[in-house]
């Protein structure tokens, strides 16, 4: 097994190195973490009531560990979904015609709805155990991450360079090894990037999902979200601050231990062959790569993968390719038919479910509420753009500042800003402000950073020559902004605004209703409509509100963002 010379096997031979030590500590720590965190998962559900969460900060590490474990589980599930769903969509044009629009719709559905409509189902899976509620929490994390990961991987699969595919085929790699040796590596950098992007959504909703009431069912899962929920009910600003600090630490650790290594590792799968920007680095990856222990286990793993591949592969030559192709074709046709039927059934079911109880009046009023939320989202995006576009351009043109600001902005985007809501709500209650106006900024609290760091990236990517030209012709002031700076960052800005808009719609459900102790604030809008329906356990209104919000998001994407994106790409992309 020592025949491949890879970066992994370059570790020095002989005595364990310092890398071995670091790697060992990391691995043992990981095991200990899993063991401790999963201890409570199989406990009977009554234990939740017996050992209620207290606001003792000493409890925080355990709670944070539980939340983190859910995050990881959700991430793994999302990966599994990505590799199957996106692959099917990309490999079968017929299925893709259905699967991709379905993904588009799924992406537009507010994430909390997934929780409210599935919670009862998941609770019934493991009756009387915490596990059911855990399933539900993991599922919601999955829904906040899986769609855009799948989209990204689908895009990658569709854009694998033809010659690479031909090379793989002409060297007679089986479908299984083509997937793992060509397609997955090729799609890895954008996939990791999207995983990172979805993390922020994940943290946001893990916090939201740990303390949730759907009608008569109330779930309080031990976790940082439950802690903060309790802190809000008890009006304990100190506890809120502790939770925020703990969260900051977790995100930092997550970033250092998981994403930084992933990004550094996935960099080797970048396809553009030109050495450009400095490669990202990670001390954890260095330690792991330097360790012989890890190298050996990885080789073992790879051997196992090969065995699996050999087991799965149909013996070559056993059937002619034509027959195999026809079989695959038939299978694909059947699967697509089943899928289409299922979707048809679902639509029919939804219509049947909604029709008898809801009249035109309800429909009109939800659309009206949707319009109010839409106005909020647009106003906030405009406001955030006014602030962050100039700042982003200013920062992006100064590499030294950008190096500091960029990671901070990304960090802020990943931070579950619902942890900060209590401060705002406490202030609104205190100063008796208008909830309809002052709750709104909460929707964009976390999503505005996407605008900032995309604009920073855009301004940094501006070619030096272009800057020199504008200096040379003395292009200054408003003319410079209008003709040079704004067009140059346009495609980046639009990308950021799209992400911010999508995130804000999702956040509306959490942001349009807020409470502080026994004070409950509510802003008029589609978000609060869904939130109230969820608390009341009124499934008709949940579904109606959700469908309306999906429609709004889809229409805004189709009619505004997508055309704008293509326009910006075509007109302003510097390449």
């Amino acid at each position, binding site marked *: 097994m020592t*025949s491949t*010379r890879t970066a992994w096997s370059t570790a020095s031979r002989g005595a364990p190195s310092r890398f071995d030590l670091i790697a060992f500590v990391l691995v043992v720590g990981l095991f200990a973490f899993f063991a401790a965190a999963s201890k409570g998962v199989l406990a009977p559900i009554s234990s939740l009531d017996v050992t209620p969460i207290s606001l003792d900060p000493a409890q925080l590490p355990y709670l944070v560990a539980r939340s983190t474990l859910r995050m990881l589980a959700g991430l793994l599930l999302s990966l599994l979904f990505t590799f199957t769903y996106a692959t099917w969509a990309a490999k079968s044009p017929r299925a893709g015609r259905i699967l991709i629009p379905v993904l588009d719709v799924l992406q537009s559905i507010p994430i909390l709805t997934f929780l409210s409509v599935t919670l009862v189902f998941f609770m019934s899976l493991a009756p009387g155990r915490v596990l059911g509620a855990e399933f539900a929490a993991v599922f919601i994390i999955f829904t906040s991450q899986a769609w855009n990961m799948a989209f990204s991987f689908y895009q990658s699969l569709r854009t694998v360079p033809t010659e690479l595919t*031909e*090379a793989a085929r002409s060297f007679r790699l089986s479908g299984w090894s083509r997937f793992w040796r060509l397609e997955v590596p090729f799609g890895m950098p954008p996939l990791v990037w999207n995983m990172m992007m979805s993390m922020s959504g994940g943290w946001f909703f893990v916090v939201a999902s740990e303390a949730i009431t759907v009608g008569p069912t109330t779930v309080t899962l031990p976790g940082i979200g439950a802690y903060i929920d309790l802190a809000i009910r008890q009006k304990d600003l100190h506890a809120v601050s502790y939770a925020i600090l703990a969260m900051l630490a977790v995100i930092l650790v997550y970033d250092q231990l998981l994403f930084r290594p992933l990004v550094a590792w996935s960099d080797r799968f970048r*396809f553009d*062959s*030109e*050495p450009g920007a400095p490669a990202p680095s990670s001390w954890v990856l260095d330690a792991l790569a330097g360790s012989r222990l890890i190298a050996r286990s990885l080789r073992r793993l790879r051997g196992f993968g090969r065995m699996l591949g050999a087991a799965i592969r149909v013996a070559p030559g056993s059937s*002619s390719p034509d027959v195999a192709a026809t079989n695959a074709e038939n299978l694909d046709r059947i699967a697509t038919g089943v899928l289409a039927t299922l979707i048809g059934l679902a639509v029919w079911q939804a219509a049947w479910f909604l029709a008898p109880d809801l009249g035109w009046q309800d429909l009109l009023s939800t659309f009206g509420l949707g319009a109010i939320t839409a106005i909020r989202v647009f106003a906030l995006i405009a406001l955030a753009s006014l602030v962050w576009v100039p700042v982003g351009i200013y920062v992006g043109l100064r590499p030294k500042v950008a190096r500091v600001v960029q990671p901070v902005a990304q960090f802020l985007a990943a931070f579950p800003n619902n942890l900060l809501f209590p401060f705002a709500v406490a202030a609104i209650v205190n100063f008796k402000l208008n909830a309809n106006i002052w709750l709104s900024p909460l929707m964009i609290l976390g999503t505005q950073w996407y605008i900032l760091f995309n604009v920073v990236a855009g301004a940094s990517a501006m070619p030096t020559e272009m800057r020199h030209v504008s200096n040379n012709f003395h292009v200054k002031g408003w003319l410079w902004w209008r003709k040079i700076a704004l067009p140059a960052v346009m495609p980046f800005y639009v990308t950021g605004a799209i992400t911010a808009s999508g995130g804000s719609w999702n956040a509306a459900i959490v942001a349009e209703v807020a409470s502080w102790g026994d004070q409950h604030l509510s802003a008029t809008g589609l978000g609060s409509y869904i939130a109230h329906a969820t608390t009341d356990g009124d499934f008709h209104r949940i579904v109606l509100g959700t469908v309306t919000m999906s429609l709004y998001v889809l229409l805004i994407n189709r009619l505004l963002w997508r055309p704008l994106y293509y326009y910006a790409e075509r007109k302003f992309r510097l390449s």
Partner: protein
Amino acid sequence: MNATPKTSADTPVLLDVVHASKSFTKGDGGDLLVLDDVNLTVRPGEVVGLLGRSGSGKSTLLRLIAGLSKPSGGRVNYLGKPVTGPAEGISMVFQSFALFPWLTVYENVALGLEAMHIARDEIRRRSLAAIDLIGLDGFESAYPRELSGGMRQRVGFARALVVHPNILLMDEPFSALDVLTAETLRTDFLDLWSDGRMPIQGVILVTHNIEEAVQMCDRILVFATNPGRIVSEIAVTIPRPRDRNDPAFAGLVEQIYVEMTAKKGRTASRISPASGSGIDTILPRVSSNILAGLLETVAAPPFSGRADLPEIASELTLEIDELFPAAETLQMLRFADLEGGDIHLLPEGIAFAGAEVDERKKLFARHLLAYVPLAAHVRRVLDERRTHAAPSSRFLDELEDHMSPEVAEETIRALVSWARYAEIFAYDDETGQFSLENPT
């Protein structure tokens, strides 16, 4: 097509392509023929060149042979058996190298063997041997992005050779390299081939470089476009190693130029004026700068109105993929004539070369409207409409009845750039509208 210099008819046949054709389905459901009735036999010891311009189907043929796509008609036999998928014993070198950027040189080379399920020791031995042979010693652990183009293509060669193929397919393997690197790689390859140090028995080389074909091949099949087909076969009997300055070498290059610009019969020409009566003539994208430059160069001494195409190609360092479309466009516009591998200017061409900018534009506009039916057609439509505007999709639809959407798009692009130079009508890319208005 069996007249081969080195082998006789009774030696075993490596590869046999019989009446192969390939067509793709067009947007409207019709078929578009890209390869028409091709016959080809390769015997051991041969290097066969497929020479032609882009769109002549030579790469399509190579992919049929590689088993990467299936012929629509006819068959491809390898060692007497039909090729139904990528065959063991046929491997390929790609124009863009097609290396896996996340694998090291060693891993890239070993990949083909791993797919063959060979013992790990054997994989290691053979991979290192191939790396050695191709001159990549010491680069085993490098990643492709660290290598220069020439070194990358060496990896491409090592990867193709390590599986010990009988036939090596090369798809313009040197065209992405600079002149010097390409020459080094070619000579290195020919040395290995002449010494018999490579495990291969036959080579098929796709190229659009005439000199390269003459230097490397025993037989050259010249392809024509629309549909792609073989128009002639030329045996190269010059002894190896071949010297480019050898008169026989230059003579053969000249002869191939003549073949490729022959005026009568089935020509290799992409736009033949004879068929240019309709609007369905495919227009190549040639910049008006290239056209003007070519006219000026031919008009000026030492050519003074008549030039040898190989000479003009080396004078202007143009590949045939650039020179031929330019020369043929001049022919279509009646500024020049092509015959016997020569280009000679017609009186209008000489007038153009001597004229000032405005005069040139007027002359060009007149010829464009007179000799390019599509230009006249668009202009007529714009004149007739009250708004003096029309979407490009209207003309694209018409063109797509006769050609693939990509070619139709290219043709419209070519027309737009010429029309803009001639100022006969305007085009707004954002709205996709042709109009008679001048931009504000």
